[in-house]
C-alpha cells in the first residue's frame, strides 16, 4: 500500500518539484513539440509534421553517429571503471583514515579546473610533436597518431570521468563489510579471487552507478570528440551543433536530442535495475 505523503514532506519537496517542472519537464515537452515543427526561410513554424523524424531516422549518417557514440560512451565507462578500480581499492582498503581523507581531497582538485582547459592541455601531450611522441621518439618509436582520432576522444572522456568514478567507487568500497572479506579468506578464497567474488559483488550498486555516470557524461560530451577527436566523423552531440548551424534546423536537432535522452533514460533504468537486483527467489 502506498503511504500518503504528509503536508510537511510535500512542502519540502516543493522547490525540487518547481525546479524540475520549470527546467526539465517543460523544456523537454517543448523539445518534443518543436521536433514536429517545420522550418521555412530560416524561420521555425509550429506544425505537426513527421518529416523531421522521418528524415533523421532513415539516414545512415544518424545511425552511424548513434552507434559510434554508444561505442565511445560504453568504452569510456568500461575503461574508466577498470582504470579507477585499483585506485579506489587501494584508497578504501590500504590507506589509513587520515590518508583516505587527503586522497578524497586530492580527487576533488581536478574539478577546480574547467574541463575545457584540461582537454586543451591534453593536446600538448598528444600531438605528433607533443610530449608523449617526443619522448617515444628518443627511444626510436613513433610518432603515433594520438590526436583527432578515437584514442584522443577516449583520453578526454576518461579525463572527464576518472575523478568522479574513483570517488563513487571509493565510497561504495568503504561500505563493503570487512567481515565478508575475512570470511571469504577463511573459506579458502585467496586474495585476488576475493576481490572478484566478494568485493566486486558487495560493492555492485556503487560500481554500476559510477560506470553509469561515466556513460552519461561521455555520451553527451561535446568537448572531447571535438577537440581531441577532431569532430569528424561526428558523435551525436557534434551532429546536433552541425544541424543547427546548417539552416537553423532546430526541429531536426530536437529529434536527435530526444533520441539521446531516450537512450540515456533506458540505459540508466536498466543499469539501476541491474544494480539493485537481489539474489534469491
Amino acid at each position, binding site marked *: 500500500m502506498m503511504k500518503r505523503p504528509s503536508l510537511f514532506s510535500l512542502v519540502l519537496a516543493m522547490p525540487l518539484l518547481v525546479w524540475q517542472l520549470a527546467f526539465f519537464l517543460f523544456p523537454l515537452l517543448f523539445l518534443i513539440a518543436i521536433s514536429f515543427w517545420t522550418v521555412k526561410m530560416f524561420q521555425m513554424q509550429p506544425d505537426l509534421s513527421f518529416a523531421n523524424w522521418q528524415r533523421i531516422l532513415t539516414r545512415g549518417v544518424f545511425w552511424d553517429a548513434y552507434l559510434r557514440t554508444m561505442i565511445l560512451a560504453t568504452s569510456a565507462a568500461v575503461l574508466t571503471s577498470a582504470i579507477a578500480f585499483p585506485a579506489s581499492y587501494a584508497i578504501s582498503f590500504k590507506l589509513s583514515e587520515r590518508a583516505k581523507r587527503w586522497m578524497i581531497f586530492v580527487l576533488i582538485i581536478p574539478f577546480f579546473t574547467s574541463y575545457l582547459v584540461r582537454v586543451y592541455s591534453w593536446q600538448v601531450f598528444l600531438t605528433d610533436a607533443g610530449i608523449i611522441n617526443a619522448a617515444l621518439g628518443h627511444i626510436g618509436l613513433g610518432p603515433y597518431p594520438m590526436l583527432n582520432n578515437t584514442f584522443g576522444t577516449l583520453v578526454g572522456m576518461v579525463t572527464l570521468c576518472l575523478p568522479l568514478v574513483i570517488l563513487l567507487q571509493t565510497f561504495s568500497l568503504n561500505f563493503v563489510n570487512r567481515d565478508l572479506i575475512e570470511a571469504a579468506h577463511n573459506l579458502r*578464497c585467496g586474495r585476488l579471487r576475493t576481490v572478484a567474488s566478494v568485493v566486486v559483488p558487495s560493492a555492485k550498486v556503487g560500481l554500476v552507478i559510477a560506470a553509469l555516470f561515466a556513460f552519461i557524461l561521455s555520451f553527451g560530451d561535446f568537448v572531447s570528440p571535438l577537440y581531441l577527436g577532431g569532430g569528424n566523423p561526428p558523435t551525436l552531440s557534434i551532429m546536433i551543433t552541425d544541424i543547427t548551424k546548417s539552416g537553423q534546423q532546430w526541429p531536426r536537432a530536437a529529434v536527435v536530442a530526444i533520441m539521446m535522452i531516450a537512450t540515456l533514460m533506458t540505459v540508466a533504468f536498466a543499469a539501476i535495475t541491474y544494480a539493485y537486483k537481489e539474489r534469491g527467489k
Partner: protein
Amino acid sequence: MDASTTPPAIVKFDNVVKKFGDFVAVEKADFEIGQGEFMAIMGSSGCGKTTTLRMLAGLEDPTSGDIYLDGERVNGRATWDRDTPMVWQSLALFPFLTVQENVEFSLKMRGVGKAERAKRARKWLEKMQITEFADRGINQLSGGQRQRVALARALVTEPKILLLDEPLSALDAHLKVRMQAVLSNLQKDLGITFVYVTHSMSEAFAMADRVVIMSRGRIEQIGTPEEIYRAPYNRFVAEFLGSANIFDGVVGAATPGGHMVAYDGGEVDLPASELLDAKTGDKVTFMVGAENVDLAPTDAGQDGLAATVVGEEFLGATATVFLETDDGQELKVQKSHAELKAVKCHAGARLIAHWAPSACHVLPGEKG
C-alpha cells in the same frame, strides 16, 4: 573430564603473546584443546578472547609464541591454508549469493565439481533443516535461519575444528536457548572440536566441556564449568561468576583439622585441605556462594553477620537478596521465595547472615 581421560590435543597455544602496538591483547596464552572437545573462551569485551580465536583461525599472527594445529605449527600460515572455518558474530554471509551458493562457497574455492558441490551442500542444508530455503537470498531469512546457513557453510568441508565468535549474541533470549541446544547436539553428533568465544557465562556453562576465562589478555582459569563454579581460582573469576561473597582474612591459630581464619565478620575454622599449606599469619581470600548463605532473624540467637536488606532480584523460583553489613560489605544471598518469607525478608529488614565452614572456598590465586 579429568587429566587422565583428556583426549589428544588438536590445538596447542604455547606461550602465545599478541600485541597491537603497545597494547597487549593476549598475554602468554598457554593451553591445549582436546580432540572433540567443546571449549568456550569467555570474558568481557576487550579481554582478548576474540583475538585468541582469530589467531587460531589465521586472521591474526601471534607476536611471539607458537600455535599448533593438529600437531603442526601454523604460525604465519594464512587462514586460507588452514582448515579452521569460523562462524562470525555478524555471520558474514554473502548477501549476493543464495543460501545454497553460500554453503557451496568453500567447496567451489577448493575446485570441487558442480554436481558434487550441490550434493554435499544439500546434505548440510538437510542436516540444518534449511533445505526449503536453498534458493532464497540471505536477506529473505530470519535470524535463526541465517544462523543455520552460517553453520552449514562452515561445516560443509567437514573440518576437524569449528571456530565460533559469539554467533548467538544477535538472537533474542528464546531463540538463543534453542540454538544452544542445536549447537550442543551438533557438536556431539559430529564429534569435532568446537571453540566458542562468548561473553555470556550461561552460554559457556550450558554448552562447553571446558571453559577458559580471560581478562585483560590473561587467562584467569581453565576448567570444566563445575570446577570453575565450585572452585574459582581467584577473585576475578569469583566476581565474574556473580554469585560469590568474597572475604579477606588472616590465618590464625591451628585447630584440630586446620586453622582459624579471622575476617571482617568474625572467625571461621577452615580445614587444612582448603587452606593449601597456609601458615599462621598468612593472608587468604575465601568465598561463599550466594546459595550457601542462610538467613536468620536477629532474635533467633544465631551467630553470624548482621546485615540490612538493600535490594532484591527475582530469578524465577529463587531470588537474590542484597544485604549490607555494618562495615559496608555487600552480601549476596540466593534463596527460594518461601525461605525468604519465613525470615520476613523485605527492604530495610535486619537479618543475620550465616553459613557452614564447609561452604567456604579459599581462592588459591589470591594466596600470600
